[in-house]
């Protein structure tokens, strides 16, 4: 299993390289000149040219890429061309809040989604099932910012229950915990639906399986049958979905971070790409893609935990 994990890890390397390459060249085609960005709106041409020289932007493209990769291998992500802050430092300060936000969203969204899906599958075709499915479909149909602003309007402003202006501290502090609630509801809200739906169809499949009938024939109580024999087996596709949806979640994160002034990496990435802050944009792309790859790696490993048949392979 360790070997399995290691090999998956190795397999991720070319993907990561591809992401880097793609990211780098995408940034190159962006018609904005980073030198102008750095110089500011009222700078003169000479100043801009001087900055171009300084940033090495006059080097050929491939050379820039390899210089970049070379530095990357030494763990040097460069410094922001806008404010000279090392990219690693910026990433360091923003990744925490984003992780917190994602974690806070997933921690309720996944269990809730799974529970809803399971209940829906078990009571298939009943009114309860319909309600649950309607709710989960509705959940994936609302624009994220709309949900966020509505929450702010009601919970934050009308009833003044919760703060919504950023992250006063880590989520394990009381202030931080309160502040993360609304963003987490907003972001998690888009996640519950897909999880619930996938769980439902997956559990439904398994509920019809022979071994569930066997479990019933043994005289096990329904609760055990559903949790131990149906849900447990149904988790693999759910886990896959979660892995894939992490990417989608990021889209929501950018919006959520903006609405709630959450100082996360999503906003950093948007800002960096838009401002042609090449090193910073690259850095965020690496981190986000790496995150995605790692999550899916974890998913792979989780398969083996969930399904002994995968372990041998």
């Amino acid at each position, binding site marked *: 299993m360790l070997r399995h994990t290691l090999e998956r890890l190795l397999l991720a390397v070319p993907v990561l390289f591809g992401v880097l390459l793609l990211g780098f060249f995408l940034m190159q085609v962006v*018609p904005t000149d980073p030198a102008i960005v750095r110089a500011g709106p009222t700078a003169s041409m000479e100043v801009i040219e*001087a900055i171009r020289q300084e940033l090495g932007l006059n080097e050929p493209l491939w050379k820039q890429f390899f210089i970049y990769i070379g530095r990357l291998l030494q763990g040097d992500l460069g410094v922001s061309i806008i*404010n*000279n802050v090392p990219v690693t430092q910026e990433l360091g300060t923003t990744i925490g809040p984003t992780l917190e936000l994602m974690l806070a969203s997933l921690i309720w969204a996944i269990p809730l989604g799974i529970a809803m899906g399971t209940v829906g599958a078990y009571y298939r075709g009943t009114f309860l099932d319909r309600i649950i499915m309607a709710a989960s479909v509705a959940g994936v149909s609302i624009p994220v910012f709309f949900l966020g602003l509505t929450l702010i*309007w009601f919970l934050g402003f009308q009833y003044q229950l919760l703060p919504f202006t950023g992250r006063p501290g880590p989520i394990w502090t009381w202030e931080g915990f309160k502040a993360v609630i609304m963003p987490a509801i907003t972001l998690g809200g888009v996640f519950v639906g897909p999880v619930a739906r996938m769980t439902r169809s997956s559990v439904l499949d398994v509920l019809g399986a022979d071994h569930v009938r066997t479990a019933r024939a043994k005289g096990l109580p329904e609760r055990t049958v559903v949790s131990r024999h149906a849900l447990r087996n149904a988790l693999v596709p759910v886990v896959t979905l979660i892995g894939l949806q992490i990417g989608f979640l990021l889209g929501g994160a950018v919006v959520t971070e*903006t609405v*709630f002034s959450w100082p996360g990496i999503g906003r950093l990435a948007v800002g960096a790409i*838009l401002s042609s802050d090449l090193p910073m944009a690259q850095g965020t792309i690496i981190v986000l893609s790496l995150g995605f790859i790692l999550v899916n790696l974890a998913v792979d490993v989780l398969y083996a935990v969930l399904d002994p048949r995968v372990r041998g392979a």
Partner: protein
Amino acid sequence: QQGNALTILRVIDADKYDPIRSTATAAAEIVYMLADTLVSIDFDMKTIKPLLAKSWTISEDGKTYTFKLRDDVKFCDGRPMKAEDVVYSLKRWTDPASKSPVSFRGGPVKDIKATDDYTVVYELKEPYADLMFQLGLSFASIIDKASVEKLGENFGVQGFNATGPYCWVSWTPRQDFVMKKNPHYAWGPEIYKNPKPQVEQIVWRVIPEQNTLMAAMQAKQADATYYMPYIAIDTISRVPGMKVQQQKNYIYDAFMGFKVDKPVVKDEAIRKAVNMATNKDAIAKAVYFGKGAPMQSLLNPSVLDYDAKSASLMPKFDPAAAAKLLDEAGWKPGSDGIREKDGQKATFTVYGLRNAVNPRISEAMQADLRKIGIDMKIQLWDATVGWGKLATQEFDAFYMSYPYVTANEALNLYFRSTQTPTPNRMNWKNEKTDQLLATATTATDDNTRKGANAAVQQQLTDASVWVPLVSEPMWLVTGDRVEGAKPHGVYGAGLYKGLDITLKR
């Protein structure tokens, strides 16, 4: 609930807080509190008052400025400020070697030197009428040499040491900027009642989303902001405890500029027609919800050297006349309602930043212009890409809004032929303008300066290089804990030094 900290909300962060490295107003509003300048600018935006310099003299030929400094000024780290600090800071600003985008603001410097510990001599190669105002801008802040050298590129990113009423505590980009009271500070400009800061701590918080900002103010999660959306100002002013104040002398103007060498818009008739067809009153009402003033002149009436005569030359809103003008100039309506001349469609592309107002202004103008048969295509860009885009020659016209202190500054900045391609995005290269501006800039007497500036204003108004739109007012909103706050607004810095503010309880 924030204890004894004053929380100020704003919508955007600066990329760094080195006075000479950032032109953003978001930087200026912080730097003004962290550092001081030799002179201060009064609430009227016209009067220069002492600050670090208690007095000054200007030589007859207008080339030598001698400043007498206060002797009681201390940096945040407790070190007393001397003339050498001033010399270092000003040289750093004006020296071309420091590649600052704002060096030119220092004028044609010959030398800056200290004659004793408290005297600084600022020598120019030729007279520079704007100098005193420029010395009042945050770019000319006096900073600590040791700290600059120690932090290098990270000065204004990781730390800062200067003589402002507040000291750098921490900066989390895109989130919070925290500053605390400078314990030594007692040299606040006389425009304030109390020369000492009275708030222990100030937290500047970035809230990129307008609605959130508005809700946060109303939910009392913050104390002050001058970024309140215009639509909310009336509502807010009705909320008990909330105070809304307007800075009438605030100079921050929105305009549309033409690239005068581009097809279609190089035709003066088109430019004039656009000017006449744009309903500025409606824009001020609808887009600014009546909180902005329509601009009927090239420059802001509150600004030094504003020329009332050229303002009267500005054509009034009159779509019918505009249409007639176009007819006369040979622009005939085509089959689709868009005018044509010599096979050329009356269409042009406008670029601008995507901020709160530009989308709406541009759409309103687009509708106005369609009525007289001109097709305006809009392309708005996010703030960060936008500056790059606005440096290109891809577009025919652009939206811009800018803060300034004198007419001379504004005109020099935008209309000198040496300022192409940016910030002279109009590609306005006119010898007469250049000459007049040179005269105004080097004038040593007020009248010469005023006259030359007025002549430029008339020339530009006549050529319809700009379509002035709205003068954006500043509205300071404060919560019930705050007392003594008064909007200032120089270079967008709504609270300027932040003195006189106290927190109840």
